């Protein structure tokens, strides 16, 4: 069968994407606590790309009446309520075997979300939380490849290590499609809003993101900056090529760049309170 068709079919019947065991066990501990609130659960959920995507899927499929679909964790939490969120946590599946690259990708996603949040606020984007969310889940396609197509994934990882190519190039060669596209398909399949699915799809080609070019550009630059910083692991060790169209959207000079670095350093250190446990 055609690989692209195979992937699309799999996405249709995708039952469950695995989460990192430490996050799930932390959340499980939290729900045992009588006084825990939905809001504090949300604060942990929004640190995980898989749980965040699942939460958004749930709220968007059970609540079709919204003219605009739900794109942020905080709105999803209010609508779903404590009990449903608790169920999501208690029933979430985890990776059978956790690899260091899984944690690396998780940190990469968190770092990108942090940088994107900073830039969204600085560029006065209406809903900065939405940009962070899109950035958090921009590599969800990689999780799909990793958990649903382990053989292809192994081949991709081998290509990256042996030939020193970008993971994206290896994906194109092995699957005929790259993770951005796969993530976009999944987001569509799960009824996530276009403000998330389009930037996910085009985070390597932000100029193609149409009306969401600004969000896609921020994610694109966040990918570059976070990899440059060496925070987490995005699948290969290289800083990816820059889209100059994206840079034009959100560019910053030396003075602002310095401030951004300072803010980013602080945000990334804050995340370590969370990631250092694992």
């Amino acid at each position: 069968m055609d690989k692209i068709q195979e992937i699309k079919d799999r996405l249709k019947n995708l039952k469950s994407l695995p989460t990192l065991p430490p996050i799930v066990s932390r959340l499980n501990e939290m729900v045992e606590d009588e006084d825990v609130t939905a809001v504090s659960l949300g604060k942990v959920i929004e640190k995980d790309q898989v749980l965040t995507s699942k939460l958004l899927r749930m709220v968007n499929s059970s609540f079709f009446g919204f003219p605009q679909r739900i794109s942020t964790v905080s709105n999803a939490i209010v609508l779903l309520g404590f009990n449903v969120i608790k169920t999501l946590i208690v029933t979430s599946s985890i990776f059978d075997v956790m690899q260091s690259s899984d944690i690396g990708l998780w940190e990469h996603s968190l770092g990108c979300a942090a940088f994107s949040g900073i830039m969204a606020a600085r560029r006065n984007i209406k809903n900065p939380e939405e940009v962070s969310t899109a950035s958090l889940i921009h590599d969800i396609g990689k999780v799909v490849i990793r958990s649903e197509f382990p053989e292809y994934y192994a081949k991709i990882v081998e290509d990256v290590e042996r030939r020193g190519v970008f993971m994206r190039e290896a994906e194109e060669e092995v699957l005929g499609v790259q993770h951005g596209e796969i993530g976009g398909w999944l987001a569509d399949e799960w009824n996530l809003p276009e403000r998330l699915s389009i930037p996910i799809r085009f985070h390597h080609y932000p100029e193609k993101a149409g009306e969401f070019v600004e969000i896609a550009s921020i994610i694109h630059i966040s990918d570059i900056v976070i990899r440059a910083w060496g925070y987490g692991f995005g699948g290969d060790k290289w800083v990816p090529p820059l889209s100059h169209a994206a840079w034009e959207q959100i560019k910053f000079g030396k003075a602002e760049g310095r401030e951004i670095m300072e803010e980013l350093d602080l945000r990334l250190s804050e995340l370590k309170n969370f990631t250092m446990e694992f």
Partner: protein
Amino acid sequence: MARISVVAPQILRTPSERLPIEAFGHKLIVHGNVQNAIESILNDPPECLLIQKGLQDGIDKTVITALKEDLKLSFLPIILAVQEKDIMSGIDFSRYPVDEIVCINAHPEEILTRIELSLSRSHRVADNNPLTGLPGNTSILKTIQGYIEQETERAVCYVDIDNFKPLNDKYGFSRGDEVIRMTARVIVNVVSEEAKSEGFVGHVGGDDFVFSVPVPAAESICKRILESFDALITLFLNPDDAERGYFESVDRQGRPQRFPLTSLSIAVVPCTKGRFNHYGEVSLVAAQLKKKVKAIEGSSYFIDRREDAEKA
């Protein structure tokens, strides 16, 4: 002809056991993996759920409670598959708020009959509002009268959606209905999280709701409800209306008219011991308060403090 999710490893295991039910036109969705089952139930709810008691890690209890407390799914009939000894020793139905039970070694035909009964019963629940699934006027009245008679102190809060009509007129009633369902969800979620079993939410009808919570918690609950409502209502507005900050329409004479955007107001009547003798008195005070709170622009709440003056 219903879609029935089966999360019961010890029941309907073979095609021949499933046949009588499927032959009746029902579609059985049999889940091998509990985790996947729950996700798929929440994402794409069936019309009936058959779940086995005593699943690993108490997942059965978690799922049943979550479904029953979810507004949209509270109507979903749940049949609990139990061991024979459970039937003999009794089941704590406050911890298992299910609609029907069936023994795991029952004949497929019996299971079919139980399913049919549950489906038919779910179609004739009386008082609940069909749009939100919340208890209606009879239950509201009983609940509040109960507080008065048992001298339970509660803040009874009357919720109104302000400028709901312009939204309905402009976007159509189906979007209006969704605003009502969103409001119901917000109220239920905040009340059940903060007041737990001491809270109550009812739907009077249209854009009117009533909820009650312990008096000391009332203020923070009102604040959270209003905040959440304001954050979500913008998702229902067309971007141009949201940006402009008001609705524009034309009256019968063709003159342009402006209406403020949709917001929420809550009138809070603290029912302290001995203050009221009858539900009618509570709603009378509420009606006066409502006028005050509606006059405030945007989302707001107003707590009746007169009782303090009376005491002093």
